[in-house]
């Protein structure tokens, strides 16, 4: 049955490509989360009237985030080729896709972190200060826990966007199902390969959404 519907699908290849996609998504989501979180917190705390109010740092971080957020991903990959070559040593394979994925997604997530942090009641931060909390304590025990559901839903949106980005990376040979769908499927006119690769992408996206929704539900107490 399956054989006749997808005559050209090489299941071993498909499985390998799925793993590559999962690997790229997981790694890039992790680094995007860490870097985006740091950038978002810096943007928040250096804004006027905040704890680290500093217009120069705020402007520089804001400029960095805005520039990299506005470059279309496919162009970013090409622009970053020399950087990737320097960092990874090659521009092919899953690891080579990571720098572009992270640099493309982290600023995007940083903006979401900023929005999430701005949602926190200023009074709660003031209360923590009035108790003698250090800024580090405020970050760890007020900012992060209080904005957790928004941070989680932000990283879901980002992770799903990253699944899409990995496919784009696939077009220039990063591996994963993007490569499979494009090179084996589209360019050889094997529609069943493209279709199967697409279906599996949908499954991955759904899985991410379900996991994070469940985590967000557990942490929402407002």
């Amino acid at each position, binding site marked *: 049955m399956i054989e006749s519907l997808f005559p050209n699908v090489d299941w071993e290849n498909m499985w390998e490509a799925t793993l590559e996609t999962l690997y790229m998504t997981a790694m890039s989501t992790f680094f995007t989360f860490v870097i985006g979180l740091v950038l978002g917190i810096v943007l928040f705390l250096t804004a006027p009237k905040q704890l680290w109010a500093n217009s120069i740092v705020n402007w520089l971080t804001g400029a960095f985030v805005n520039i990299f957020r506005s470059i279309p991903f496919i162009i970013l990959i090409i622009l970053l080729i020399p950087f990737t070559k320097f960092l990874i040593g090659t521009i092919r394979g899953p690891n080579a896709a990571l720098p572009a994925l992270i640099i493309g997604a982290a600023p995007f997530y940083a903006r979401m972190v900023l929005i999430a942090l701005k949602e926190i*009641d200023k*009074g*709660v931060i*003031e*209360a*923590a*200060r*009035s*108790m*003698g*909390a*250090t800024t580090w*304590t405020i970050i760890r*025990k*007020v900012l992060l*826990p*209080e904005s*957790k559901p928004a941070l989680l839903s932000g990283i879901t949106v980002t992770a799903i966007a990253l699944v899409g980005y990995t496919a784009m990376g696939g077009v220039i040979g990063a591996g994963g199902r993007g490569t499979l769908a494009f090179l084996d499927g589209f360019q050889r006119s094997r529609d069943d390969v493209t279709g199967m690769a697409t279906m599996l992408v949908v499954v991955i996206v759904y899985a991410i959404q379900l996991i994070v929704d469940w985590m967000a539900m557990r*942490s929402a*107490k*407002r």
Partner: protein
Amino acid sequence: MIELKKLSKVFDTGKGSLTAVDHVDLSIGAGEIFGIIGYSGAGKSTLIRLLNGLEKPSDGSVVINGQNITAIKGNDLRKARQKVSMIFQHFNLLWSRTVKENIEFPLEIAGVPKSKRDARVLELVELVGLKGRENAYPSQLSGGQKQRVGIARALANEPEVLLCDEATSALDPQTTDSILELLVDINKRLGLTIVLITHEMHVIRKICHRVAVMEGGRVVELGDVLNVFQSPKEEITKRFVAQVTDTEDSQETIKNLRKLYPTGELVKLVFVGDQTEQPILTQLIRKYPVDVNIVQGNIAHTQRGAYGTLILQMKGSAQEISEALTYLNAESVQTEVMSND
């Protein structure tokens, strides 16, 4: 206990400067409940934030228990803040933490070990009357309960001073009263000095020993609550006092009363403290041949005694009325004949 000297705060608004607090000198004693009343924009919010260093003054100093709050920063200031805690109008609880965890928060900040924290939290939960609600989240509590958590949280590190920033302004009258009672209870039991800011004279009347009236960043009137109620000097203070005593001696009301009671004289009496408990009216009627009709009366209880006003209609000859008034004045009751115009 708390000494404010020439305290000023000027904000730079970009378009110019705004003086929020203007050369305020105040001295607040240990164990005192001190109220600061003013309309919004009077500078009372800024003033209370100067007391724990949340705002830095432009000039002047704040000394609490011998420590100059305005001169210290960093770790010293954070340590000092643990002894000068604060509660807020909108409670400012962490919604991601339970009641227990919210109360535990300042203890975590102070570096108290977990085993001691649990015992202390239990004590505080009981003190503020929230037993059984330890594991609820703030979103599951009523406003009054949230403020109780705020109070427990503020008391966690055994502070010497409690600052209340409009702590009851977001609560309904009944809940306000129960929170105020809790504050008085804490003040008596723990000997805590309480500084509160409010725009409700009701709060001042109910729990404060002394009051400062603020307008335009300055303290325009200062004194014992009872004295201020008895003889408010500034126009703004009179308006605040009228909020609670409500004798409504505006020209309009006097005219109406005159219409209702056209004969005799309308006399307003002001009783303060012990006099409110004396049978002065009985004495008056027995001693003087005047007819007395009670038109309107009101009594307000403060922490330092009661304060009452009474409007009487007196009938009799001018001579008799004049003698009756002399008697009342001799009993140190303030009298005021309400004129006809």
